C-alpha cells in the first residue's frame, strides 16, 4: 500500500474562484495548481498539544469573571478520517462571533455590542476515540457587505491538523435550517451535495437538562490512499 493520502474527490471543496464571494476575485490563483506527489513532507505533520491547550480552554463560557450573554450550547463530535478511523490527540481550534454577531477582533467594525465576558476562542485535543466537546454560546448572524444586504449564515470556525500536512483543514460549522443559507456565497460555494456535511445536528441526547442545548458535528479528514503500489 502507498504511504500517500487519498486525494480529495471532486465535489468536496469550494472552487477557489467563486465570483459570488467577492474577495476571491483578487486572491484566488489564476493558474491551476501543480500536481505534487506525496513525499515525507506531505504525509507527516506537526504534533501540537503539549502546552497548547490549558484546562478550561474548551469552555468559552468560563474564560472571564462573568458569564457571556446568549444561548448556552454544547458542540461536540468526532474527528475521523475518510476510512472511518478516529483521529485521536489532535488539536481542534474554534473561534466565533458573540451572541450579538460581533467578533472580539480589533478589525470587526459591526456596530453590535462586544461582550466583556466572551472572547470566542476555544481549543481542545481529541480523546482516544477522536471525540471533542466545547461549551459556548450560539453566535449571532452578522452583515458583511459582500453584496446588497449580505449576512453571513450563523457559523463557528474550526481549525484541524490531523496527523499529516495534507490533512490540515479550516472549515465552518453551520446550524440546521438557517434561513440565510440561500444568500451566503461562502456556504453556497461548496458543491451542493457536500453542503450538509458542514451543518451540525441537534443532539437531544447530549443536552444538559435545565442548562444547555447540544449540537453534534463530526469532522472528516482525508484518509490513506487505498491504491496498491507496484514496487
Amino acid at each position, binding site marked *: 500500500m502507498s504511504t500517500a493520502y487519498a*486525494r480529495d*474527490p471532486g465535489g468536496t*471543496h*469550494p472552487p*477557489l474562484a467563486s465570483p459570488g*464571494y467577492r*474577495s*476571491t*476575485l*483578487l*486572491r*484566488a*490563483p*489564476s*493558474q491551476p*495548481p*501543480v*500536481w*505534487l*506527489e*506525496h*513525499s*515525507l*513532507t*506531505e504525509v*507527516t*505533520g*506537526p504534533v501540537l498539544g503539549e502546552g497548547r491547550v490549558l484546562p478550561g480552554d474548551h469552555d468559552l463560557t468560563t474564560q472571564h469573571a462573568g458569564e457571556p450573554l446568549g444561548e448556552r450550547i454544547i458542540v461536540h463530535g468526532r474527528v*475521523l*478520517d*475518510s*476510512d*472511518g478511523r478516529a483521529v485521536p490527540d489532535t488539536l481542534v*481550534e*474554534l*473561534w466565533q462571533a458573540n451572541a450579538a454577531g460581533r*467578533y*472580539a477582533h480589533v*478589525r*470587526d467594525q459591526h456596530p453590535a455590542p462586544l461582550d466583556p465576558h466572551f472572547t470566542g*476562542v476555544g481549543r481542545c485535543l481529541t480523546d482516544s476515540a477522536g471525540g471533542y466537546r466545547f461549551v459556548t454560546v450560539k453566535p449571532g448572524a452578522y452583515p458583511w457587505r459582500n453584496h446588497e444586504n449580505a449576512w453571513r449564515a450563523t*457559523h463557528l*470556525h474550526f*481549525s484541524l491538523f490531523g496527523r499529516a*500536512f495534507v490533512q*490540515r*483543514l*479550516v*472549515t*465552518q460549522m453551520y446550524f440546521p435550517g438557517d434561513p440565510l443559507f440561500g444568500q451566503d456565497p*461562502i456556504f453556497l*460555494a*461548496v458543491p451542493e451535495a*457536500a453542503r450538509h456535511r*458542514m451543518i451540525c445536528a441537534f443532539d437531544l441526547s447530549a443536552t444538559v437538562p435545565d442548562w444547555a442545548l447540544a449540537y453534534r458535528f463530526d*469532522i*472528516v*479528514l*482525508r*484518509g490513506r490512499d487505498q491504491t496498491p503500489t507496484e514496487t
Partner: protein
Amino acid sequence: MLGLTPSQTVGPFFSHALTWPDGPVVDEGPDSFWLRGTVFDGEGALVSDALIETWQPDGAGRFNHPGFRGYGRCGTDDHGRWAVRTVLPGVVPAPDGRPQAPHIAVSVFARGLLDRVVTRVYFADSTVEDPVLSALPADRRETLLARRSADGYEFDIRLRGERETVFFAV
C-alpha cells in the same frame, strides 16, 4: 468511505484565535535565520490578513524529531509581512527515492481563499537537484526560490496574476 468535510475560508477575524506568541519560532538555535516575506493579491496590493503556516524537518531531514517542532505560524501585518525563525531543512527523499532539495511546505489561509493554497519554499543557493522544481517551467520555478537577505531569506507570495507563485495540488 465517509464524505470529507468541505473547506471554508478562515475569514478576516482569526488572528486572536490562530496566532501564538511563539508561533513564528520554529527554531532559534545558533544556525537559525529569519525567513520573511510579503503576501500580495492579484493587483499587487498587500494582503494584511493572511495566515502563513510552515512545515519542515530539522537540519538532518528528520520530521517530528524530539525537541524540534518543525511547524511555524505567523499572521501577516499591516504591510503584508510575515516571518518565521527557523533552520535550513535537511534533504528528504522524493516518493521514488531520489533526493529533494531542502524545502519548507507552506500553507496560506486568508479571507477570499475558500481553501488554503499550498506552496514550497526552496533556497536559491541550494545545489541539490530537485525533481519538483525541474519539472516546472523556468519562469515559474523562480517563484519558489527564497533569496538571501540581511538576516536570512526572503520569500514573497503572489496569490494571483503577474509572477503568480506556484501552488501545488496535494
